[in-house]
């Protein structure tokens, strides 16, 4: 913008019409340069995002199966109609929603608690923060495999429970506990990541606010809920939304450990799409699921950006 102001000053003698033309020309030339700079990103956008989206939409209106080979036939909204009436799809959606709700609630509360604890001027804070962050850096497939062994009936978790006098738990082999076991695993992975955003948010709250509250005789609880939490709204909303999106796409634990079972208890939506496409071989149905899922994610992302833009600066 300021460069335009410079030019304005330089060409002030040219008169309004000539000036507008000059400014327009500079803006067009910067637009051209800008598009050149943007072109690698725009090309990846086109080939890696838009093209597969269009091919998913197109495939969702076709029926293609392993039996039909490479040919496919137009079926209109049949795939969508099938999904709407499919109890298996509904079950998979509900499983995913349950997983996301429980995981986001647990992770947000834990991350907030840890962030508050770590900003009390505790000794060795950087080291403890690194340890909590460490699982985030481990590939999800690795964490999944390690926790999978820990969850075995003869594994280390049951040994710990045994030492505490608690009976053996079936964990991944039980349709009641399998999904919650995966919640534990992904929370170990994720909490440290979200803690960092909340620590950054807590550090930005001016100490005067809390001091003023203390002078007014507010206790720690009142200060936290009355002052700290409202001021932390922005990072908290970011954490909740970003974490929701991340957990909607949980896949590796269901694929590596449980294959969606036992009794479809861990058949989350992305695993359902994967097995629909690769095991059942029904690309049309898988694509219809992808399109519906994509609309949901886009809506969440758009809402997130609207919120962040509205509350920025």
């Amino acid at each position, binding site marked *: 913008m300021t460069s335009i102001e410079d030019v304005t000053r330089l060409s002030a003698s040219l008169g309004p019409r000539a000036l507008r033309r000059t400014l327009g020309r500079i803006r067009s030339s910067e637009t051209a340069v800008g598009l050149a700079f943007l072109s690698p990103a725009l090309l990846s956008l086109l080939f890696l995002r838009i093209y597969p989206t269009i091919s998913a939409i197109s495939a969702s209106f076709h029926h293609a199966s392993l039996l039909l080979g490479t040919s496919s036939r137009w079926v209109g909204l049949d795939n969508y109609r099938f999904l709407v009436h499919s109890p298996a799809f509904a079950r998979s959606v509900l499983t995913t929603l349950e997983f996301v709700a429980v995981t986001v609630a647990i992770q947000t509360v834990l991350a907030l608690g840890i962030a508050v604890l770590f900003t009390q001027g505790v000794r060795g804070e950087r080291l403890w923060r690194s340890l909590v962050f460490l699982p985030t850096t481990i590939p999800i497939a690795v964490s999944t495999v390690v926790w999978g062994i*820990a969850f075995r009936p003869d594994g280390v978790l049951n040994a710990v429970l045994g030492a505490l006098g608690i009976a053996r738990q079936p964990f991944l082999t039980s349709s009641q506990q399998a999904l919650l076991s995966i919640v534990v695993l992904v929370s170990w992975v994720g909490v440290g990541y979200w803690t960092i955003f909340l620590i950054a948010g807590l550090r930005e709250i001016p100490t005067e606010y809390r001091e003023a509250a203390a002078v007014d005789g507010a206790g*720690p609880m009142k200060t936290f809920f009355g002052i700290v939490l409202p001021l932390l709204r922005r990072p908290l909303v970011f954490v909740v939304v970003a974490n929701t999106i991340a957990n909607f796409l949980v896949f590796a634990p269901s694929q590596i450990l449980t294959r969606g079972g036992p009794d479809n208890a861990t058949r989350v939506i992305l695993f359902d799409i994967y097995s629909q496409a690769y095991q059942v071989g029904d690309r049309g149905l898988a694509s219809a699921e992808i399109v519906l899922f994509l609309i949901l994610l886009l809506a969440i992302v758009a809402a997130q*950006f609207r919120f962040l833009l509205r509350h920025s600066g």
Partner: protein
Amino acid sequence: MRARFPLRPRLLLSIAAAGVGLLFLLPVLWMLSSAFRPESEIFTYLSPLSVHTILPKTWTVASFTAVLHGGLPRTIFNSMLVGLATALLGVVVSATAAFALAVLNMRFRRALFALVVISFSVPFDILAIPLASNFRQWGLANSYAGLILPGLANGLAIFLLRQFFLGIPVELKEAALVDGAPWLRIFWSIYLPLTRPALISAGLILFTFQWQAYLWPLLIATNPKIQLGPVYVAGLSNLYAVHFGQIFAACVLLCVIPTALMLYLQRTFTQSVATSGIK
């Protein structure tokens, strides 16, 4: 400035913080100890719990030797190659995009910014399955290019670099423009050198994305020669004859590289990630 709640015994809070940190470390310690003990002893010292649950009674690197003579080194090499190539090329893609969106006075700049950041904010995995079909048609299946390309454009990296570019005083750009410097020179000699920590962070984000990827390499790299580390490890646990010691050793090796990078660059990384998310 330290944020503090009204006086509380600092010592108790410090102990609680240490407890939390160690609790998160525990699974990693167990993984390490299981990798360094004889395979026959992995499930031995569990009940009753003892020091040897977490500390091997006999130390051995047998599991590492075994796993290093198998298919793992190749897959680690593949993962490194894909991660580094993605980081290098991806920084170019992100930095040029961020430069256009932050510095150049373009028409439709806001709209382009929204388009780029929002579309790259939708997690890639949802499009992995249709894109895998596209890539097979384009002859990119089982190739390094096929593994690298989807990681190149990263919304977080673009967003982060744009924030840092916006922080560079415009006077520098104006002075260069008055001297008649071309935009490419302004980008290369002013903006890039002044944002090195952000560029490193962006590279790290891109590397980590690839190092952690699972669904995409599972779909597109089915040939063992091109397979990536995480897919290989997941496959080990699904074999008929499961060697737990080797699984743990492979897991340790796959953790060491990003962890070392992360601890080394933690400061710049955590700071910039936190800033890019909420500012």
